[in-house]
């Protein structure tokens, strides 16, 4: 999605303020605001050819070949026929062109899909169905339930009371809980009266388009009066309308100006590090080529001066050549043409093909296919494969990526008894698996069928009417801010602000305490089949300081009770002293729960005295209407009543991780990959997940928490952390500090440092904002990279991208970002590799990702198997490719010294044309598509095998130089063995042997057999296809050679095939074959010896692992170990109520209640949403 807004941005000055008037297109048109079309495609039908060719020729290699082609057309220089360059060049351009065209076609399709979504627009007093792309700034549009918001809208009115509108922002920020937006009262009056809406002519002035999701300022001028606008009244593109029958909105920002698009960042064309290295190498090769040509040109000058001048008797100088130096100059270019094959154009094509092939393997992998959602893995970008084998940093989103965003009521402790574990006859705890018998809730008709619980004793307790147990569940069914929804009798759906609350209420529902309906004053609960209506007297709502919430209710019998639930640390202080012994038991249980990574919560109650409550209630009323210090007064009152509570027990909720997350993280950690979690969640939740998925654990030496609220605080915290991890890192003598002094200012790369232990770092979004500022960046990178795990919480989408950018900037490492929501898009686009979790509702992340699959655990297979293979294959390919072309081309160089530096080629021109294209392309492709050093099972079992990729060991400049040297050595052999074998000798029938054509044939046959043997040596996994390619290529070589050298071809195309008869006459000679055999021996044996000795004398760590595997293979493979990670944490997490203030005030005010409801006598929330049905709540 690269060209957003570019067109507009260039045309006019940067917009400073936006001004628009509702229902007045003419007025709005003068500002040339972008309409709601989005364009991610690059070309159209007519611009494709010129633009695409222009882009392709921007590649150094393609431009170079064009240049070569031009050179070849100059007759004095042309040393090779034109077809040697044109054929490959056209082929390359065509292949890339077709690929680009297909990609762009798909982008067109997806743009078209989005742009053509229907929406109702108010035009001339009528609601008309329009396409999204035709929506203009200033239009009024109508959205219905479950619609995607079309553009950034100002909410005008809605079907709900007080013009509330519920939206889900998962696409934007990843939070799945509902948010409420409310329109201005003046606009809310418009209702759905089309007449009034058409007459509405409010004028909006607001800030220019920007990417701040949580901020909006503007004013609405209506009938001369000004109203302030803020984010609470905005519906942003990317959100989904929920629980709201309809709403009207005024388009403020459209298309590329919307906050979603502004946040999506620009796609930069991603290139792999090997791409970049290849570009450098190509330049190096050019330089090398230039040097060789220069040497040969000088040689030619000298030769022409010393010999050629006198040889003019038989060979006069070419026309226009009057001096040896001019001849040398021309020869320089002739040699450029001949030696150009060191940078073969087919390199790029082959690289693309290999990547494409390896991408297909990802699509085809049945082990990355998720049957539940029928989602296979998908390689959406096919040019980044080998980079998957080099990942060093993973940036992961939390919700939906690590976790399923499903909360489960897992365990509880009631009155000192712990429930939730399953025990066998002998009292041993058994693991809960899919086969464990679930508790049967059929006695309860209102039970949620998806709720699963395994401990039967709890049901027994409920059935036996155990008083504390009943009270416990009554509390859970009363003390919350959940909204019920009952579309059909008996099918209840809860709308919870936080999934935790939903889980608790659902648990109570299943055990027979069904929360059925609420009004501002009452709560209807069906207790064990008996409907009871409680009077709701007060909600003492949750906030971050209180960390608890209470309700005060009056039972039908008239008893006043306060029910309270909250974090244990807080609630324990408020308990009545009579609970001390129970407290101890409960604490034990709490520790147990926390140890399993569950989120815990303590529940307590208190019976209230009527008189006291009336007094309190009066004061409460006064306080809540106070004009000054309302908050303080209220919290004082709350504290007053929430004390001397009676402990009931504790609940434990599991924030369900995706399958296999802890194991995956453990494996990735073994592969030396660092994992950073970037989440929009609050700190407690994030850390809790950190513990439960084994990122953080109690074995760590320390977990630093950075939460400073000024730049200075953050700096101090970061420095203190670093001081602890590496005390000497502040000394001037520290290597890295010294290195910094030396290195230039703008390109600082922080080398890896070693900490003195295992540490974790948690940083909040607020502090992160400071830390990402200029001077703190470096501190952050150095501190964070010392830690094994970094968790950033409360971060915005943009900050996610900034963090990734930061690591990219200061670390020479490959980064991968993985996420599922629209809030991860920027991060996914920024990282070297972006992975989207597919199969969820939002597709934004997947659409902008490079790879996608359904489950986080597939990441290990993607990296350790596919990534590793792709990387190894690519490296092997490059090594071999450079080798074969050096060996091929440098023979010309040596021949130059024996042919008067006249740019005479050693081989037949056809051989030169076909060498890269036909004779040697398939075997190396076969290797790069099929090779495996160890199979997938072993590479998962030994994650250490991944490390060489991270360190870039298999292909780098040193390796390249080695290939080059090997190529030079081979070319020497390939020239001098045939030379020696032919020099001053004759055939066995006495005829001369050393003619040019025989020599050419012998040299090219030698070369081809040598490089074929070499590929055989490099191939470690010989499938049928490899065999076929290698033997096939050799046979094809001989077949083509004999055909081209045949009588018929000569008689038809005399000028093109002058080598007639050479193959027949030469290949029958014994010493030709002896020379070929000797060349093979001399080229290949040293390589065999060297490789073997290197593995023996200086084994790399992965050599050792391979050896281990080899030994292990002799024994039957071990069954893949079934590890169950026991979490040993004793840390307890508080309860994630919600990110914001609770809904309490809203409920009490009754503003969100509607008078009518189909089933319950009292109001329900809203009948429309079916969203949570999927989620099993």
């Amino acid at each position: 999605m690269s060209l957003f807004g570019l067109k507009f941005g260039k045309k006019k000055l940067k917009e400073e303020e936006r001004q628009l008037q509702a229902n007045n297109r003419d007025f709005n048109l003068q500002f040339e605001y972008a309409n709601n079309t989005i364009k991610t495609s690059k070309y159209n039908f007519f611009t494709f050819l010129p633009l695409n060719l222009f882009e392709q020729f921007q590649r150094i290699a393609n431009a170079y070949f064009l240049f070569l082609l031009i050179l070849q057309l100059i007759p004095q220089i042309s040393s090779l026929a034109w077809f040697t360059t044109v054929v490959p060049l056209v082929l390359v351009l065509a292949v890339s062109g077709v690929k680009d065209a297909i990609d762009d076609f798909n982008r067109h399709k997806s743009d078209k899909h989005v742009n053509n979504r229907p929406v109702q627009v108010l035009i001339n007093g009528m609601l008309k169905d329009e396409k999204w792309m035709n929506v203009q700034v200033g239009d009024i549009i109508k959205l219905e339930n479950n619609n995607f918001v079309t553009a950034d809208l100002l909410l005008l009115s809605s079907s709900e009371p007080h013009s509330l509108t519920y939206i889900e922002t998962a696409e934007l920020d990843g939070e799945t809980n509902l948010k409420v937006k409310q329109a201005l009262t003046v606009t809310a009056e418009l209702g759905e009266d089309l007449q009034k809406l058409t007459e509405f002519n409010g004028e909006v002035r607001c800030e220019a388009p920007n990417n701040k999701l949580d901020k909006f300022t503007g004013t609405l001028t209506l009938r001369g009066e000004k109203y302030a606008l803020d984010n609470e009244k905005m519906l942003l593109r990317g959100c989904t309308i929920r629980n709201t029958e309809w709403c009207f909105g005024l388009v403020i920002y459209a298309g590329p100006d919307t906050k979603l698009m502004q946040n999506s960042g620009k796609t930069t064309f991603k290139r792999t590090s090997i791409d970049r290295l290849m570009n450098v190498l190509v330049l190096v090769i050019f330089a090398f080529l230039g040097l060789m040509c220069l040497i040969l040109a000088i040689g030619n000058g000298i030769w022409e001066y010393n010999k050629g001048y006198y040889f003019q008797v038989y060979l006069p100088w070419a026309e226009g050549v009057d001096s040896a130096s001019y001849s040398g100059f021309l020869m320089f270019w002739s040699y450029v043409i001949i030696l150009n094959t060191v940078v073969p154009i087919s390199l790029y094509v082959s690289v693309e093909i290999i990547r494409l092939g390896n991408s297909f393997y990802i699509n085809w992998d049945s082990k990355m296919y998720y049957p539940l959602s029928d989602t296979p893995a998908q390689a959406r970008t096919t040019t980044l494969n080998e980079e998957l084998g080099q990942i060093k940093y993973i940036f992961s989103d939390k919700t939906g990526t690590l976790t399923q965003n499903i909360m489960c009521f897992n365990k509880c402790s009631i009155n000192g008894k712990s429930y939730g574990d399953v025990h066998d006859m002998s009292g041993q705890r058994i693991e809960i698996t899919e086969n464990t018998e679930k508790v049967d809730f059929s006695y309860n008709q209102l039970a949620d069928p998806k709720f699963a619980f395994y401990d039967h004793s709890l049901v027994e307790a409920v059935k036996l009417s155990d008083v504390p147990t009943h009270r416990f569940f009554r509390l859970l069914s009363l003390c919350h801010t959940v909204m019920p929804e009952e579309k059909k009798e008996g099918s209840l759906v809860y709308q919870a602000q936080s999934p935790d609350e939903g889980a608790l209420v659902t648990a109570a529902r299943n055990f027979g305490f069904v929360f059925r309906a609420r009004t501002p004053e009452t709560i209807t609960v069906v207790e064990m089949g008996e409907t009871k209506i409680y009077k709701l007297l007060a909600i003492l709502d949750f906030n971050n300081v209180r960390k608890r919430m209470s309700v005060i209710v009056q039972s039908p019998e008239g008893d006043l009770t306060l029910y309270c639930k909250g974090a244990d640390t807080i609630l324990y202080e408020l308990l009545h002293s009579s609970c001390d012994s129970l407290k101890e038991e409960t604490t034990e249980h709490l520790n147990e729960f926390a140890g399993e990574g569950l989120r815990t919560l303590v529940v307590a109650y208190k019976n209230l005295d009527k008189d006291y409550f009336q007094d309190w209630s009066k004061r409460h009323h006064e306080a809540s209407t106070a004009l000054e210090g309302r908050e303080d007064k209220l919290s004082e009152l709350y504290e007053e009543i929430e004390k001397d509570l009676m402990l009931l027990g504790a609940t434990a909720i599991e924030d369900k991780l995706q399958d296999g997350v802890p194991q995956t993280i453990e494996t990735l950690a073994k592969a030396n990959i660092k994992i950073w979690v970037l989440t929009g969640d609050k700190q407690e939740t994030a850390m809790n997940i950190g513990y439960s998925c084994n990122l953080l654990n109690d074995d760590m030496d320390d977990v630093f928490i950075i939460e400073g609220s000024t730049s200075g605080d953050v700096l101090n915290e970061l420095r203190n952390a670093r001081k602890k991890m590496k005390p000497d890192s502040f000394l001037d003598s520290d290597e890295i500090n010294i290195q910094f002094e030396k290195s230039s200012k703008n390109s600082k790369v922080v080398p890896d440092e070693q900490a003195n232990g295992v540490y974790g770092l948690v940083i909040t979004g607020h502090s992160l904002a400071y830390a990402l500022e200029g001077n703190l960046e470096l501190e952050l990178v150095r501190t964070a990279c010392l830690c094994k795990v970094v968790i950033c919480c409360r971060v915005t989408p943009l900050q996610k991208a900034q963090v990734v950018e930061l690591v990219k900037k200061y670390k020479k490492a490959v980064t991968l970002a993985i996420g599922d929501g629209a809030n991860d898009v920027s991060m996914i686009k920024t990282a070297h590799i972006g992975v989207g979790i597919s199969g969820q509702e939002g597709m934004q992340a997947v659409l902008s990702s490079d790879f996608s699959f359904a489950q986080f655990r597939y990441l290990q297979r993607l990296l350790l198997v596919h990534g590793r293979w792709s990387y190894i294959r690519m490296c092997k390919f490059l090594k071999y490719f450079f080798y074969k072309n050096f060996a091929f081309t440098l023979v010309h160089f040596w021949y130059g010294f024996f042919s008067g530096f006249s740019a005479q080629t050693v081989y037949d021109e056809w051989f030169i044309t076909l060498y890269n294209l036909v004779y040697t392309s398939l075997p190396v492709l076969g290797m790069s598509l099929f090779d495996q050093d160890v199979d997938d099972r072993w590479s998962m079992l030994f994650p250490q095998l991944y490390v060489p990729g991270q360190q870039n060991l298999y292909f780098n400049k040193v390796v390249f130089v080695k290939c080059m040297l090997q190529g030079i050595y081979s070319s020497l052999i390939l020239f001098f063995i045939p030379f020696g074998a032919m020099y001053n000798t004759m055939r066995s029938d006495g005829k001369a042997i050393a003619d040019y054509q025989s020599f050419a044939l012998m040299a090219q046959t030698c070369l081809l057999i040598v490089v074929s043997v070499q590929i055989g040596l490099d191939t470690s996994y010989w499938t049928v296809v490899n065999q076929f390619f290698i033997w096939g290529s050799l046979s094809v070589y001989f077949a083509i050679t004999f055909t081209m050298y045949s009588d018929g071809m000569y008689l038809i195309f005399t000028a093109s095939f002058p080598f007639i008869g050479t193959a027949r006459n030469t290949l029958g000679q014994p010493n030709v074959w002896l020379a070929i055999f000797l060349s093979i021996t001399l080229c290949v044996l040293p390589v065999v010896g060297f490789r073997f000795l290197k593995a023996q004398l200086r084994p790399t760590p992965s050599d050792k692992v391979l050896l281990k595997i080899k030994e292990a293979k002799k024994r039957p493979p071990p069954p893949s170990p079934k590890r169950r990670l026991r979490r040993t944490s004793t840390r307890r997490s508080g309860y994630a109520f919600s990110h914001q203030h609770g809904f309490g005030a809203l409920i009490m005010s009754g503003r969100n209640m509607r008078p009518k409801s189909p089933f319950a006598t009292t109001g329900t929330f809203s009948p429309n949403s079916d969203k949570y049905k999927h989620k099993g709540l």
Partner: protein
Amino acid sequence: MKNKTSFPPQEGETHPSRCPDNSAFKQQKLPAWKPHLTLATVLSTFFLTGAFCLSVGVCLILSANSVREIQIDYSEKCSDCSKLRENTSNWNKECHCFVNFTLKEDILGDVFMYYGLKNFYQNHRRYVVSRSDAQLLGRNVNIQKSSCAPFTTYQNGTPMAPCGAIANSMFNDTIDLFYNINSSVIQVPLLKTGNSWWTDKNVKFHNPKSYNVSSAFAETARPPYWQKPVYLLDEEDEKNNGYVNDDFIIWMRVSAFATFRNLYRRVSRVRQFADGLPAGNYTFHISYNFPVSKFKGRKHVILSTVVWSGGSNPFLGIAYVVSGTVAALTGFVITAIHLKLRKKKTYFQK
């Protein structure tokens, strides 16, 4: 951007599962041979190759040594002629030169006579391309368009036949061999045909179709350096005249290097030469036409026998012996290193 994926999975029930095929190819589980460099394979490779190379090398050296070869540099011995030829104005003056040599032993078997040139860059790019294959096929072509430059036509437009630098520079010394026996001189019978490749003689070269050779080359002229036109190359043998003359064909097959030898004649094994050349005194009778001194070239005349591996060049034999020795030695070194390492390993293993 595939739209399929944007449908929620529930809708997918109607169309088939998107589960990838479980084929060995797609799952990268094709059966394969997985060779490894093990000690056994490496050592056997080295020792076997070493043994093979050594034996082949010895055979090659032995057979190369059995080749009898006499090589005489006559550009030096015929210095007078060579000086005469330096001046191009003497091109039509004949110059003869006699080179004597003695055979101490008989040369048995087929004896081949070569002329050798040194420092003659037949492999120069512009030289190599300077010919017209179509013309040599006997086709009527416009050689102005061929790559024969600068030897295409004379100023008056008469095309050269054959055209091009290669043809123009054809070696035109004539060498005869005389056997001096008992003060009588016998000319050794030499065969001048059958020296070129069959494909060249029968496919690549054809005279233009005409009732006789000389008329076939009407309206063409000899190349400037030639003393006689192409249809007079061999007046005795119609099948060896014109473009299909063996000496011409051999010359046109340009050499890969600046030093080369071309087959000139074969000794005809008749009469006293039925077993080869008997020991005794011989004389080369050379008609010296081809100037080489100008570009510091050298001319040789060579008499040689051949064996299965060709001529007397010992290069391959030596190279094989050396390679074989090195391979075998490396094999021993690897064995030694391995033994040492194994000791170390057992020492370190607890």
